């Protein structure tokens, strides 16, 4: 099992990640920094675990409001309770004040109107001279058919096997969803990783990257100031980005790629791709078509250049270039729209090659 890959566990049909991609080095760095800071300050952290449980049958909603810690949420089929473990960690120059503060932190589970509200209750902060710092990590286990809503800051959020919808709002941390259904993510200053999502997906992210792997049905991603990479997209998918790259491969269904001040690179290699619509402004686009792939291609580029190594017609029309052509029978309908953008099309196109994600096909 390669690092960073999501695989179906053999026993319960659940998705598990073999290793945390891309966040490992940051977590290690954060841990080293924490050790360094603790050593310099002479502080010994106070740690404590708090557990709580509440009745929560399938169909209920779990709402979590949190900051200064990570949140993991695992959905389990056949479950009718919500279990939460809070790991408390307090550091400070005043060890007694830190212990007292940490001991008085409570984990609250409050139920009302088929909803369980999860929150961490803090005692009054001691004097600033105690120089306390704290973090509380939450681990939730809930019914796979319970809906989850999370709002968090300064921590990562990880959700697995949530089949009744989840809504995650996070900032200053990464978000990872695997095996979920009907997901919505609003994120800032962190990466978003979505694997094996079906139903609907909506991701709005800024100052970070978005990675999609195995996203089915309707999906919309709006990102800025980062990259968007999609593999195994299948359904109605729209990826939009500003000042970053968009890279897709192994796509099926209907895919729309929109970018501004960035690069777009798309592989067309599956006849299951019905439509590919690329709109780019002040960007560069590279379209890789397999030599034996049938296609129907059309497009207009204003003040840009179309370079194509395939048998298509490229005509100058004032300050536009119009491209059209087809090969074989059927194949995807490819539409290109560009302004101040160069398009490189086909396996024989000239120009700088953009980075290609490594991929091994299994037959």
């Amino acid at each position, binding site marked *: 099992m390669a690092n960073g890959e999501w695989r179906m566990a053999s026993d319960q049909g659940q998705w598990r990640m073999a290793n945390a991609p891309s966040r490992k080095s940051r977590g290690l760095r954060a841990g080293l920094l924490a050790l360094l800071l603790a050593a310099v300050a002479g502080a010994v952290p106070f740690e404590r675990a708090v557990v709580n449980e509440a009745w929560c049958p399938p169909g209920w909603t779990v709402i979590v409001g949190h900051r*200064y810690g990570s949140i993991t949420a695992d959905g389990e089929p056949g479950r009718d309770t919500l279990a939460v473990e809070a790991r408390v960690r307090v550091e400070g120059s005043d060890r007694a004040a830190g212990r007292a503060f940490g001991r008085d932190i409570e984990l609250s589970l409050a139920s009302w109107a088929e909803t369980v509200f999860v929150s961490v209750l803090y005692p009054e902060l001691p004097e600033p001279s105690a120089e306390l*710092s704290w973090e509380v990590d939450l681990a939730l286990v809930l019914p796979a058919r319970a809906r989850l809503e999370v709002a968090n800051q*300064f921590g990562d959020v990880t959700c697995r096997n949530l089949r009744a919808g989840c809504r995650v709002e996070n900032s200053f941390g990464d978000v990872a969803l695997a095996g979920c259904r009907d997901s919505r993510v609003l994120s800032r200053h962190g990466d978003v990783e979505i694997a094996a999502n079906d139903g609907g997906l909506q991701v709005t992210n800024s100052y970070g990257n978005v990675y999609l792997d195995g996203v089915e049905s309707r999906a919309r991603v709006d990102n800025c100031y980062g990259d968007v990479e999609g593999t195994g997209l299948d359904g109605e998918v729209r990826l939009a980005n500003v000042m970053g790259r968009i890279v897709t491969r192994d796509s099926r269904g209907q895919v729309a790629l929109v970018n501004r001040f960035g690069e777009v690179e798309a592989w067309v290699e599956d006849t299951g791709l019905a439509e590919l619509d690329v709109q780019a402004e002040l960007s560069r686009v590279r379209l890789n078509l397999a030599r034996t792939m049938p296609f129907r291609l059309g497009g207009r580029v204003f*003040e840009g*250049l179309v370079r194509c190594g395939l048998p298509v017609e490229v005509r100058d029309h004032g300050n536009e270039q119009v491209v059209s052509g087809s090969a074989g029978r059927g194949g995807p309908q490819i539409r290109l729209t560009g302004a101040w953008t160069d398009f490189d099309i086909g396996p024989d196109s000239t120009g700088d090659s953009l980075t290609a994600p490594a991929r091994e096909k299994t037959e």
Partner: protein
Amino acid sequence: MERHLDTCPDCRRVLAELAAVRTAAMELEQLEPSPETWRAIRRRVMPERRLRQAWIWAGAAAVAATLVAVVFLGRPGPDRQDRLAAVATAAPEAARELGEQYDDYLRGIDAALDEIRTALDENPGNTRVRMALYRAHQSRSDAMDRMVSGGY
């Protein structure tokens, strides 16, 4: 300086932030600016000394517009030189749009820094908050580097 710090909480806060950033930065590998960075700075500085002459203004603007076109549209070949004239005409607008986008980027970073500082006031030693502070400063620095290099 020390007497001032005794009486000024704002400056004490800034000093604490800088100390936190420096601590985190010492954990990182040393990076050198690309040669293109210094060339780009020199290109920006040198024309300003000659801006008193109108014909130098025109020449510098044409070169800058061509550079913007090259950055946006890649290496020109012999079949694209006829387009560069049109691109150079519109390049100032493209450069303005890119500048506005960078302004938006930097405003977002500055807003994030305000949020992080508020969090540091509440939870001063929290590792995640300090890492967020470092990353925000790093993002700002990277953006300035890209702007100077003429890329995006």
